[in-house]
């Protein structure tokens, strides 16, 4: 009894052969895999665009008033003689945040991987509503185009920050940006619609489309994370949409929701925005936690430590995430008693976060570690998420938060969780699932160099920002000169900027690897990582409809090094128990 036969577990899928036209197959496709890949290209484009904006911001901070390289390409209204104007700097900061949060990270996590992975990992042929899924992509495209185009209109792109606090954002005469701000709103309302359509699909699919045997407690943690994320997006996005519409009406048809002169309440905007904004933070990290859990188990050849606790932690982070939005507003003049309750609820989130962190360490503990590129990024995720999580506890404490409010400490924190956390998780996921998506392997050596340089430069860029923040460096500051307390910091800005260029260039290594592997990478087998979940039990890339035969699920999601299996260290979810060879007969 030494061999495991890959026995068919279900009856063959009955398929009616039909050829789709090029347009239906690759452009207006309703196949979840094509939609996921479309989202991948869209969001990687915005990742690049957001990165370029960040480079320009960094130039201004390190060498204020110096002409940018290639600065002469910009029109007079942005950067006369290559020296950027303060208004343009405001637009850059706003749109860097908008691109990265809404169009890069959110679309990468949810648009790409929820679409691509949910049906494959639960053993479904496609999403519950393929056409609504297609609509969710084709609503996101104009949203992105409108956001990009806003740079070209009179007054430039929105400049009130990614949070667009009223009344600044509601008063064009104060911000100097009228049409750009309105385009920003329309763009995000469209993106919200895309997100709601997508979430409806993901939730319904996970509830009602699981393969026979795929019980809730056999769902891979990625699916759990994406499912919880979809619920968060479903319930928080409409609140943002409502707030955005009120803001748009304030600018266009003369309503007074957020304008204090007429009795409106600027604080209302902050409450609505952060009621969305805090769940949004978890939308941006939970899927990455799911990828990390799965990749750490794969790289350690051990089951995820504490699967049930991991699911419980995801659920409780999501529930708590709706009760903590006030911690963004400690400085808004709220009642200190209320601030205390927000402070406590925020700190409680440290508990499920710590459960996850310790379970990741437990997963790796005494594992048979394989340091492939996805594994490296997943370990990087855990390390940087811990730093970002700890600085989060600092900020949750109202007395300390009032000290560091709107300083670079906040900038450091958000980048540790969004870049060090979410984006490391995304890189791990792209390296891990690229073979499944495109049928080719990415280059391991280049991937490892990419990881090492990214990890190094990332920390050089963002760690000093903690110190800058404590020293009083203000967030969104255009001109670092002329402040007595910032004079000694200028050399750190130069250090950060040079490291940021290094970070951008190491990102280019990824771009080269991605583009090269797309056409020239070695052909990928169905299961290159010896993984257990269902998507690896079908060819790479999977055919339309996903399965040759219907998968029937018999096992948990991460059964690595199963003691009852003799000759390999993984047990696919759909292997029949009567066929698996027992190690201890």
């Amino acid at each position, binding site marked *: 009894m030494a061999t495991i036969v890959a026995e068919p577990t*279900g*009856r*063959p*899928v*009955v*398929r*009616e052969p*039909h050829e789709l036209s090029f347009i239906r197959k690759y452009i207006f496709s309703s196949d979840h895999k094509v939609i996921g890949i479309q989202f991948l290209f869209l969001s990687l484009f915005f990742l690049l665009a957001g990165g370029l904006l960040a480079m320009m911001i960094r130039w201004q901070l390190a060498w204020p008033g110096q002409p940018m390289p290639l600065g002469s390409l910009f029109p007079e209204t942005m950067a006369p003689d290559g020296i950027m104007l303060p208004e343009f700097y405001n637009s850059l900061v706003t749109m860097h945040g908008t691109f990265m949060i809404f169009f890069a990270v959110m679309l990468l996590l949810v648009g790409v991987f929820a679409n691509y992975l949910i049906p494959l990992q639960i053993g*479904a*042929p*496609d999403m*519950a*509503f*393929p056409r*609504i899924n297609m609509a969710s992509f084709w609503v996101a495209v104009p949203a992105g185009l409108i956001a990009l185009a806003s740079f070209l209109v009179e007054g430039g792109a929105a400049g009130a920050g990614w949070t667009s606090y009223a009344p600044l954002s509601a008063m064009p005469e104060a911000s100097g940006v009228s049409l750009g701000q309105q385009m920003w709103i329309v763009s995000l309302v469209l993106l919200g619609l895309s997100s*709601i359509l997508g*979430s*409806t*699909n993901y*939730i*319904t699919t996970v*509830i*009602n*489309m*699981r*393969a*026979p*045997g*795929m*019980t809730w407690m056999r769902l891979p943690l990625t699916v759990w994370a994406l499912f919880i994320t979809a619920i968060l997006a*479903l*319930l*928080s*996005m*409409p*609140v943002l*949409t*409502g*707030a955005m*519409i*009120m803001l748009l*009406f304030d600018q266009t*048809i*003369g*309503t*007074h*929701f957020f304008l204090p002169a*007429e*009795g*409106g*309440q600027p604080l*209302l905007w902050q*409450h*609505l925005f952060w*009621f969305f904004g805090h769940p949004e933070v978890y939308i941006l990290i939970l899927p990455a936690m799911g990828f990390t859990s799965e990749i750490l188990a794969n790289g350690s050849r051990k089951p995820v430590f504490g699967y049930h606790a991991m699911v419980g932690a995801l659920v409780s982070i999501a529930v708590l995430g709706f009760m903590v939005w006030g911690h963004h507003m400690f400085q808004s003049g709220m009642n200190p008693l209320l601030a205390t309750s927000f402070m406590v609820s925020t700190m409680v989130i440290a508990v499920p976060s710590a459960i996850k962190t310790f379970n990741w360490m437990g997963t790796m503990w005494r594992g048979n570690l394989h340091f492939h590129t996805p594994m490296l990024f997943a370990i990087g995720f855990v390390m940087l998420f811990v730093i970002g999580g700890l600085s989060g506890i600092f900020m949750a404490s109202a007395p300390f938060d009032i000290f560091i409010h709107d300083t670079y400490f906040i900038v450091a924190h958000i980048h540790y969780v969004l870049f060090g956390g979410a984006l490391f998780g995304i890189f791990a996921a792209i390296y891990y699932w690229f073979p499944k998506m495109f049928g080719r392997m990415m280059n391991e050596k280049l991937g490892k160099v990419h990881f090492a340089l990214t990890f190094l430069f990332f920390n050089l860029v963002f760690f000093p920002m903690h110190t800058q923040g404590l020293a009083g460096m203000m967030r969104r500051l255009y001109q670092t000169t002329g402040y007595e307390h910032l004079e000694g910091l200028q050399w750190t800005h130069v250090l950060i900027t040079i490291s940021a260029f290094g970070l951008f260039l190491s990102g280019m290594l990824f771009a080269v690897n991605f583009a090269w592997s797309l056409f020239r990478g070695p052909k990928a087998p169905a299961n290159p990582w010896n993984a257990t979940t269902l998507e690896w039990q079908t060819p790479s890339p999977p055919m339309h*409809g996903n*399965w040759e035969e*219907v998968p*029937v*699920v018999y096992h948990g999601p991460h059964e690595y090094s199963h003691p009852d299996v003799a000759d390999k260290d993984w047990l696919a979810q759909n292997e029949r128990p009567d066929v698996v060879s027992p190690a201890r007969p």
Partner: protein
Amino acid sequence: MAGAVTYYAGRAPERGLAVYTQKVGMWVFLASEVMFFTSLIGSYIILRFGASETWPLPGEVLNIPITAINTFILICSSVTMVKAFAAAEVGDKRGTRLFTLATALIGSTFLGVQILEYRELLHEGFGPSSGLYGSTFYTMTGFHGFHVFSGVCCLFWASWKAFRGGYDNRAYKGLEVLGLYWHFVDLVWIILFTVVYLI
């Protein structure tokens, strides 16, 4: 997916919510709609409490009796919606046609009355820029009206389908899902009528 493809090969998928997928989808979508209207109604409550001394009393600006009748009209359309679904479920094609079209027409009546109300108010100089009261009134009732309008469009489409015999005791899911949406829109109106017109 296409009807000829039997992906689960005769096996049922893992037991989900024991209702068909379109219905689950509509429930999920309605959850997001609840949050959307919550943001508008919640803002209304906060803004009104912040300016309670300048807020007009019920009936000072708005014509309550007309809107009360309009509310009754909308509730009637929920009744006909249920009748349409019940008729389809038992295979009564004539009843399905009749009640679906009736729902669409009653919904249109509601919209018509709302448009007349808006015209009257604008004529009196009460517009969206007339202070917070105007801002909140037009935003909330306007977005509700937009939802009714979307529902009416779907109902006319469903009527057209019913007249072509598209619904029977095997195919009534579309009508049931549309009914869920329609009842939701109706329910939102009852809340809006209460908080905007009566309290």
